[in-house]
């Protein structure tokens, strides 16, 4: 990020000076009559939708005073279309240009004062070159055409070069976009010539100041008449290393309106001469992550080709734009910061330099707002644009994780042409500590969140005393489960023993079996009571466990009933001793219940 004054570019510096003067208040007219246009060579380029006028003027000081500047005049109606104006001297230095006005000035004209680099002494000559670009001067005529018709436009101007000074000799050459001379009509003003799309008026000589002679041309111009009615260009600078550019376009085909119906069939076969299928442009070669979308999603009809000059973009709107049709879309890309932001070593200030207007070829921009979003904490913001602008506004933008907001600069201007796609500069200072703001903010946020979770986990909001201490509850449940397990184990073992005793009894070796049964019966009752107590206690803690324990109670009762039904039957004096088969059958029946009880108990005591 080393700053190099040479890197700023000489052109920029010149533009900068130019800009400062242009944006100053209109200067007084202070008309000096001694100047004469010795020779004027005017070239009007009408090959696109833009009217580019290139005039070479040999200026002669035939008066007696020194001249330090001279005046350019435009008719008011023409001047309202003026978009870009520059004047160079013979060696290519830009001259200062400023709007001039005075009560003494003749009405119907607008004047610009051009300051000369060197004072023009009487009887001396200087040659200057004027370059002006106008928009929307070619008017569609007829105003409505059908899909297959060629686009015809009307252009009006003056046969003479309009000047507040006397002109000795002049000539005008007009270049049209068509070679077809048959469809071209023009006002005759001899000497006139028309040849292969090139029209010459003149040479004329000795023309008085302010002489007007209306010229009108009518010719075919099928070049795209694409006008951006509104362009919002957002440049977001992040000192983490990226510049995000997003351009929101509202476009219109300014050609003659489509008359009648649109036919896809005809369009597929012969196209439409006035329709605009695509827009092309050139992005810097470092541009990445290009996107092209509108309010309803991605526009899939686009192409990006890396070339030597940069990234060539070909964008098709969703539909071809016929005359009068509109479209809106949004287009964006990223630029690496190191190529566009320099740091001044001495002062520590930063300078952002990016192109001002659109990258698209040959479009007219009616209205532009360039919004520069600087990093949070930027201050001492200065903007310099190499041409006059309508307004510069300062504001604040809240982006992702912004705390105090990022300072923004909005530059507004209307009526732009491709000549305005030059770099402008925004200088600012920002402490690199501001870079840390976001990570710190996020860390604090996460810390607070974690702390909140910690606090929540440790917090106790329950009202009931018993529930208050979670640990106590868990301990109590544990205790109950332990005694439950012991209780059921004791009971199960008792039945097992009784079964063994029954086997002995069957063999006739256990006469006291009746007493055994009685003991187990009592034990079962005792265990039942114990279980009920446990359940009662458990109700305070865990409803699911209560439900399961109740199931255990039912199952154990069932076991008791089943087993005792057999034993009571066997104990009857008259009863025969059960056979082996009967015993096995009984065992398998009891086994089922036993398994169920075991499962339930295991389920409940799994956690122990």
């Amino acid at each position, binding site marked *: 990020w080393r700053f190099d004054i040479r890197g700023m570019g000489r052109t920029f510096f010149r533009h900068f000076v130019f800009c400062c003067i242009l944006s100053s208040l209109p200067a007084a007219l202070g008309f000096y009559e001694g100047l004469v246009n010795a020779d004027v060579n005017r070239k009007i380029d009408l090959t696109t939708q833009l009217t580019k006028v290139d005039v070479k003027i040999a200026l002669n000081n035939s008066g007696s005073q020194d001249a330090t500047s001279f005046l350019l005049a435009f008719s008011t109606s023409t001047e309202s279309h003026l978009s870009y104006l520059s004047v160079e001297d013979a060696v290519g230095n830009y001259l200062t240009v400023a709007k001039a006005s005075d009560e003494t000035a003749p009405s119907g004209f607008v004047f610009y004062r051009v300051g000369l680099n060197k004072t023009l002494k009487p009887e001396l000559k200087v040659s200057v070159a004027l370059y002006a670009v106008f928009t929307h001067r070619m008017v569609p005529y007829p105003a409505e055409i059908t899909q297959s018709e060629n686009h015809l436009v009307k252009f009006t101007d003056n046969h003479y070069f309009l000047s507040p000074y006397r002109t000795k000799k002049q000539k005008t050459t007009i270049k049209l976009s068509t070679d077809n001379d048959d469809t071209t009509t023009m006002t005759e003003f001899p000497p006139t010539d028309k040849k292969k799309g090139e029209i010459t008026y003149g040479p004329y000589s000795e023309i008085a100041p302010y002489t007007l002679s209306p010229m009108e041309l009518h010719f075919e111009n099928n070049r795209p008449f694409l006008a951006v009615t509104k362009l919002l260009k957002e440049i977001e600078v992040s000192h983490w290393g990226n510049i995000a550019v997003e351009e929101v376009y509202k476009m219109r085909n300014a050609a003659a309106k489509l008359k009648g119906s649109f036919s*896809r069939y005809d369009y597929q076969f012969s196209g439409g001469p006035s329709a605009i299928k695509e827009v092309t442009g050139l992005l810097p070669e470092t541009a990445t992550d290009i996107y092209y979308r509108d309010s309803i999603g991605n526009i899939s009809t686009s192409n990006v080709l890396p070339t030597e000059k940069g990234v060539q973009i070909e964008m098709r709107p969703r539909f071809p734009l016929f005359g009068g049709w509109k479209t809106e879309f949004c287009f964006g890309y990223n630029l690496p910061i190191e190529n566009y932001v320099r740091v001044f070593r001495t002062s520590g200030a930063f300078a952002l330099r990016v192109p001002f207007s659109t990258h698209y070829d040959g479009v007219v921009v009616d209205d532009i707002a360039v919004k520069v979003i600087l990093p949070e904490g930027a201050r001492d913001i200065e903007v310099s644009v190499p041409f006059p602008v309508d307004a510069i506004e300062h504001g604040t933008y809240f982006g*992702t994780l912004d705390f105090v907001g990022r300072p923004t600069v909005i530059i507004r201007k209307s009526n732009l042409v491709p000549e305005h796609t030059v770099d402008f500069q925004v200088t600012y200072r920002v402490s690199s500590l501001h870079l840390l703001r976001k990570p710190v903010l996020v860390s604090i946020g996460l810390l607070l969140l974690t702390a909140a979770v910690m606090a929540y986990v440790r917090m106790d909001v329950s009202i009931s005393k018993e529930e208050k201490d979670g640990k106590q509850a868990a301990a109590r449940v544990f205790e109950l489960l332990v005694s439950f397990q012991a209780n059921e184990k004791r009971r199960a073992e008792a039945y097992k023993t009784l079964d063994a005793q029954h086997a002995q009894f069957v063999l006739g070796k256990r006469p006291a079996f009746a007493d055994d049964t009685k003991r187990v019966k009592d034990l079962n009752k005792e265990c039942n009571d114990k279980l009920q107590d446990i359940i009662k206690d458990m109700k305070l803690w865990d409803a699911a466990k209560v439900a399961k324990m109740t199931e255990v109670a039912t199952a154990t009762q069932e076991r008791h009933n089943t087993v005792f039904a057999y034993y009571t039957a066997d104990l009857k004096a008259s009863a025969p001793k059960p056979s082996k088969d009967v015993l096995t059958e009984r065992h398998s029946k009891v086994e089922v219940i036993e398994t169920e009880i075991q499962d339930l108990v295991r389920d409940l005591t799994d956690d122990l």
Partner: protein
Amino acid sequence: GSFDGGRRRSTQMGFLQSVQNFRIPKKNESVFLEIVILGCIYVLAFAVRLFSILRFESVIHEFDPYFNFRTTKYLVSQGLYKFWNWFDDESWYPLGRIIGGTVYPGLMYTSAIIFWILNAISLNVNIRNVCVLTAPFFASNTAIVTYLFGKEIRDTETGLVAAALISIVPGYISRSVAGSFDNEGVAIFALILTFYLWVKSVNTGSLFWSLLCSLAYLYMAAAWGGYIFIINIIPLYVLVMLACGRFSQRLYVAYTSMYILGTIFAMQIRFIGFQAVQSSEHMAAMGVFCLLQLVNFLSWMRTMLPGDHFRRLIKLVFTVVGSTTAVAVAIMTATGYISPWTGRFYSLLDPTYAKEHIPIIASVSEHQPTTWSSFFFDLHLLVFLFPAGLYFCFRKLNDANIFAILYSVTSVYFAGVMVRLMLVLAPAACVLSAVAVSSTLKTYMGHLKKPKAVAKKPKVDNTIPIQREIALVAIAGLTLLLCLYTFHCTWVTSEAYSSPSVVLAAKQGDGSRVIFDDFREAYYWLKMNTAPDAKIMSWWDYGYQITGMGNRTIIVDNNTWNNTHIATVGRAMSSTEPDAYKIMRMLDVDYVLVVFGGLTGYASDDINKFLWMVRIGGGVYPVIKEADYLTANGEYRIDKEGTPAMLNSLMYKMCYYRFGKTMTEYGKPAGYDRVRQVEIGNKDVELEYIEEAYTTEHWIVRIYKVKPEENRWAAA
């Protein structure tokens, strides 16, 4: 100095040692494992739904989501109050629609709140991305809720398996991929949450959980018309519990508080309002509520009265209550206090009902009965695991299991009736399958463990019981099946359910992908190049998209609330040009939009939907007769054999205008329709009352301008 250094070293050593010795306590270990698994599931459920963004773009899908997106944008930009009172004059021209009172606003509120929260913590997101990602986000949440539900029904393991299964089940993914911004996206979350809280409140009998359950029910009622399912299945469950003799105070507390609070909450939704106590769909819940009071009262009386008296009391109560209820219901139905069942509800109970009575419901593909293949497609392995899960539930019957059984059995029925309701079955299938999987795995894993314990005995290798091998095989088999399930789900998601359907993609002969973006091309053309108050007529399918993307007024849309209005449009489409012109002038139509697939082979176009237009139009206007559009053999033809009514209908003319000269396929004559695979019958279509305004690149959408009447006078 040296002393200090020494101390520092010793503390360092201590720290290192404590790090080395650090071990998570056993109890926390399982919690930690649970959290890690759930975290993975959470991310997976979200990530698997992003195929659509990767394949296409971050865009809203299909039809209804465009309406939801539009209303959400309105809510976000205009605020709650204006949304509540929103009268939309852009749809159902000239009737309009009271949006605030005719939507389930849960989805819009949800995404608006997410949007507001994110912006409040200064995370700049745009509302489109919030809407696109709402469904995946809620799918992740659903996985967590399913975990809780499974845990409540059985145990933690079941919960985890259920969460894993539901995170990728295609039946649910179909409605919750990124961009699918529909009510169901959040509603399934709300549904499972309500069920979980319901089971919890039945298990605990706690007022707190019942309150949470009714809040969840409120969210469900706000989000989707499917809340009717909840308000019917819970009473059904209570009935079943009563029949099983499982009435308890827990059940009583849970149901009464949930019903009262839930109904009051649901009435706060404008679209539901008094329906919650008046419509037939809600009557079962009310009836069960009363019944439960009666049962509770009687069970209390039983403790107070001798058996003989009690029996007499029961007889008396049943006669009085039964007859009063019958009379009251009859009177209320007759006076219209209780509204009759809606058609959609009827068609749920009787799948053939819609086909005979309401063509507009039958015409929607998602209301068709489900085929066997789509069960397998949407559930895969779960189709087989589901009955196993039912078996396991029956084996250990308890209150929670009964609910799971009931939910799954009813949802199987509903999924069979309507394809769309596969969505309700999917979670049930996941939970029951999880029961099966976790029970099986638990059993066999237990067998795996045992020999390890005895492995310490020397030389027992040859004495390992065969049980262990069986267990290994079973576990391996189940793992394989689950892997297959995962592959199937991923494949289905990426291939079948991730297409936004507003952008069509097709594979060319050389394998490259070609995109048909005609819908957006047409809608954007409408937005940019027609008057802001232009009225567009199209079949109702495209209504939401036209207002959503084109921002223009339409005659009918997917809300289908006014059958007559739709029938009028159907009639216009089926009439001849002069007749249709009269209707269109009546409706102030400026443009007509049709969808035509004949050039590209896009099959769901208007010509294929045309018979439904005729049917629906004819249902209201008997001038339109279906027979006129079918050949003598009852065939639907568009070639030379087609009937004059067909070949001269407005729809036919608009679709095939200028198509007669177009070559579509090599070796076929001009005007060859690639969808119907025939040469069209009327090749020189002349239009008198309308003119082509725009046709998209692949001819999929064609827009015609209705000529103003003055032109005809001027021409004459």
